[in-house]
């Protein structure tokens, strides 16, 4: 067989997603006006599921394709499962919202499929150029999605802001890629690793390259000091889109970051990027915690919460050890469930006049008017705050365990203190829901699918979810080991 077919077979999920998104576009165009969105959405979920199934019979070990541009291993497979699941959830959770808001166009699931395709490429990129292609493929549909509610000024503004800043970040990243290519002679990660470990002296050019790449990727994961877009985009973008942004792209970008740093820059140079990561992690944790205290808008609050969470996840990446990467993956998994769950609750609630909830004050007395949703949101908040026995505590535990095992005790201390500050604003939402008297009784959207997803996320984040620790950590450990070939 021609090598190209072998490569396409290895890149199963990407192939399915490419063909599927094209088919979805056709399907949307040719199905009736009224039901185009529903049909396309369900089709998109089926495509995402199918892409997931192709991962099942993927060969064990590390398989390269397309002349080493692409790699399929346990690491990429694990992240792809999360990305595909988060994307499928994002397609489903948007349905009631889109139908109601008048933006019910079928392009939503199609754009989401394309962005997902970009993300799966990101986590499988074994070359700085594949990385860039994946990143842009994920980013461009995201800009459109941010501005999806085009009649709304805030949504248009969010899309524009995201586009301008995103393009700038991509430019910085690309500049870093050229520097690394110039000083190492390759764009392929394992070849760069060979060059780097062969060097006896520190190469300033490479270092600059790493800094630029880190800056570009820090923008994508919304880590401080490249986080400024996040609250504005989350606030302006349609809520389901914000939910999508907070989950799958974060998982993809963190995976990408881990692969680039661990695979391409091992050994002595690791100490250099570690310093940068320590700064980014601390700054994200602290700023995410402190800035959120003053927020009144629930979406902005969740935006700052995601900034802080990225900081915690980066603590896992900092040591650059298998235990740390495993903790990072575990963190990402639980974080996706927590953030999607929180957004789902926000989406599920309506003001009496039918408009979506925006401010935290809207939640006053929710425990009396909507006890089940309030209980679910309380679980997500305590979980995000990292209070045991809720599941959200254990990813924090895992990343700090990895940091302490590598002697980064000060980082762990600062992180834990930041988590106490962060606990304050998560508690505030609980206080509003449970201690305050109801102001306006909120109604629910009544979507059974979303209700079921909320229940599933809440169950996962509750103490019962602790039973998932063992299998999950076994899977993340296996995935992390793929980045460290013996």
């Amino acid at each position: 067989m021609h090598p190209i077919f072998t490569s396409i077979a290895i890149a199963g999920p990407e192939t399915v997603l490419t063909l599927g998104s094209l088919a979805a576009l056709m399907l949307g165009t040719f199905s009736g006006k009224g039901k185009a969105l529903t049909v396309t959405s369900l089709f998109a979920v089926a495509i995402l599921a199918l892409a997931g199934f192709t991962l099942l019979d993927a060969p064990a070990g590390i398989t390269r394709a397309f002349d080493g541009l692409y790699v399929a291993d346990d690491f990429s497979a694990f992240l792809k499962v999360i990305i595909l699941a988060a994307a499928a959830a994002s397609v489903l959770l948007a349905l009631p919202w889109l139908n109601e808001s008048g933006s019910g166009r079928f392009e939503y699931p199609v754009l989401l499929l394309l962005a997902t395709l970009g993300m799966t490429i990101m986590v499988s990129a074994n070359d700085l150029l594949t990385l860039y292609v994946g990143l842009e493929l994920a980013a461009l549909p995201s800009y459109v999605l941010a501005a999806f509610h085009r009649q709304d000024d805030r949504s248009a503004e969010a899309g524009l802001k995201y586009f301008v800043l995103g393009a700038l970040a991509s430019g910085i990243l690309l500049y870093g890629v050229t520097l690394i290519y110039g000083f190492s002679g390759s764009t392929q990660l394992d070849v760069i690793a060979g060059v780097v470990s062969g060097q006896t002296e520190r190469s300033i050019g490479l270092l600059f390259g790493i800094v630029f790449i880190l800056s570009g990727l820090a923008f994508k994961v919304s880590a401080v000091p490249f986080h400024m877009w996040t609250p504005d985009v989350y606030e302006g973008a349609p809520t389901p889109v914000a939910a999508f942004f907070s989950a799958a792209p974060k998982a993809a970008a963190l995976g990408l970051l881990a692969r680039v740093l661990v695979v391409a820059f091992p050994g002595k140079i690791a100490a250099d990027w570690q310093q940068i990561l320590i700064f980014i992690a601390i700054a994200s944790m602290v700023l995410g915690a402190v800035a959120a205290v003053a927020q009144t808008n629930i979406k902005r609050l969740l935006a700052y919460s995601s900034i802080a969470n990225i900081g915690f996840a980066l603590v896992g990446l900092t040591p650059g050890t298998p235990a740390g990467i495993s903790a990072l993956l575990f963190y990402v998994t639980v974080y996706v469930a927590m953030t999607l769950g929180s957004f789902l609750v926000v989406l599920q609630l309506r003001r009496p006049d039918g408009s979506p909830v925006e401010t935290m004050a809207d939640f006053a007395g929710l425990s009396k008017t909507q006890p089940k949703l309030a209980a679910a949101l309380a679980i997500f908040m305590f979980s995000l705050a990292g209070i045991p026995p809720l599941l959200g505590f254990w990813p924090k535990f895992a990343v700090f365990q990895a940091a302490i095992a590598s002697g980064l005790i000060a980082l762990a201390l600062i992180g834990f203190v930041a988590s106490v500050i962060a606990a304050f604003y998560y508690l505030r939402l609980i206080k509003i829901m449970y201690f305050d008297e109801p102001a306006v009784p909120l109604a629910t959207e009544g979507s059974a699918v979303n209700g079921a997803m909320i229940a599933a996320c809440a169950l996962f984040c509750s103490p019962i979810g602790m039973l998932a620790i063992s299998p999950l950590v076994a899977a993340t450990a296996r995935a992390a080991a793929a980045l460290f070939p013996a």
Partner: protein
Amino acid sequence: MILSFMILLPVVAALVVATLPGGDEERAGRARVVALATTLVEFVLGIWLWTQFDQTTSAFQFTENLPLFAPFLNWSLGIDGIALMLIELSVFLMPLCILASWVAVKKRVPEYMAAFLLMESLMIGTFAARDMFLFYLFFEGGLIPMFLIIGIWGGARRIYASYKFFLYTLLGSVLMLVAMLWMVNFAGSADIGVLSRTDFPKEAQFWLFLAFFASFAVKMPMWPVHTWLPDAHVEAPTAGSVILAGVLLKLGGYGFIRFSLPMFPDASAQLIWLVFGLSMVAVVYTSLVALVQQDMKKLIAYSSVAHMAFVTGGLFALNTQGIEGAMVMMLSHGLVSGALFLCVGVIYDRLHTREIGRYGGLADTMPKYALVLLFFTMASVGLPATSGFVAEFLVLLGMYQTSTWATFVLTTGIILGAAYMLWLYARVAYGKAAGDDTRAMPDLDAREIAILAPIILATLWMGIYPKSFQAPMKPAIAEVVARLEGRELATVPTDMTVSRTLAPALPAIAAPAHAAESHH
């Protein structure tokens, strides 16, 4: 399995209570019954546990070990005498708390009962955990129900108090968590038994001790991080105060005896001055503060801080009498201050104020109540034949061997304690009633007597025949002391007896023999 059952039963009951069908009134009624039944079953199980407990060994009993949450933590349970007695205290107070809230709590009764049941489960879990991270899980998990109890059912400044309680204790605990992660990384095991026999490097012990200290000192609470306690107590509902004073405050002392003393013996010996210093300040300062309180609950809260200073003083006497005294003090304080909060609750339910000046003359209008209050006032002061006397006597006896000065200062605390408690009693029970509404208050009813009578009996029992309560704890305390002295000897020139010089080399094996030799 019995421990797992005791931990899981209240959780299941809490879920049942929270999801009961029916209208508001029906749900409230059923929730009360289910909660009371569950806590009574727990109490019976607790008594059964006591009867089955082997009092001759310091080893963990009723052990279970399931690698449920590997690789992070194991479902590893087991109790020694210290844990047993604290579990007894928890299961004893819990049904009384439910009864005390029977009519006083009117809003959201099912949620209230569910929160208390969760509380009970987490408290038993904290004492029964044999894996350090499992301990942390229960230890921290208790914050959530308590936060909700204070915040939803508390008084006027409940929100401020609930935040203060939560964030204060959380900040202390995360420092401890960092230390725990470091220790497990060093020792390669999270088993408390293994860690208690691990010799951590001396410099590390210092910092580890301080990290644990940050957490336990806040929970205890010790001066100057005690300020959350009066706020939390004042705003919590009566039963919340009882659990807070009765059991949650014991977590700090339990932490010291389970972790700080056996795991960091060098640092404990090195930092006696810190603990004694804070204890001395606490006893005198908080007693003086208690003297000027106008709010009954605040007064008792400050007296709790003073009593807890006796606990820390006794623990860091680092000898058998001191530690035993500290344990008895914890049990005694759990009963007596719990009962005092219940007594305040009784009159608060009638007049809806805790201001001392609004009462007076209760000895005339509520004679039964006045008698009960007098009994617990005396128990708090430490009158012989009550549990408080045994506790204070043992603590001072132990401390006298370590520091006469600290003992002297703590003894003045007893005098001050008598002053504020008796003055409180005089203002509430004697004199003239402050108003017609005060005069019209009915005396204790049958339910209230049923709540207070068991505590009176327990207090008397502990005061007259403390051996019943001390016996199960003796072997466990002897082991802690052996560990402490074994470590101390390691730094002393070794021209001592042969068995003592062997002790540091073989702490685990030599410890029991050594203890037997030096203390009997």
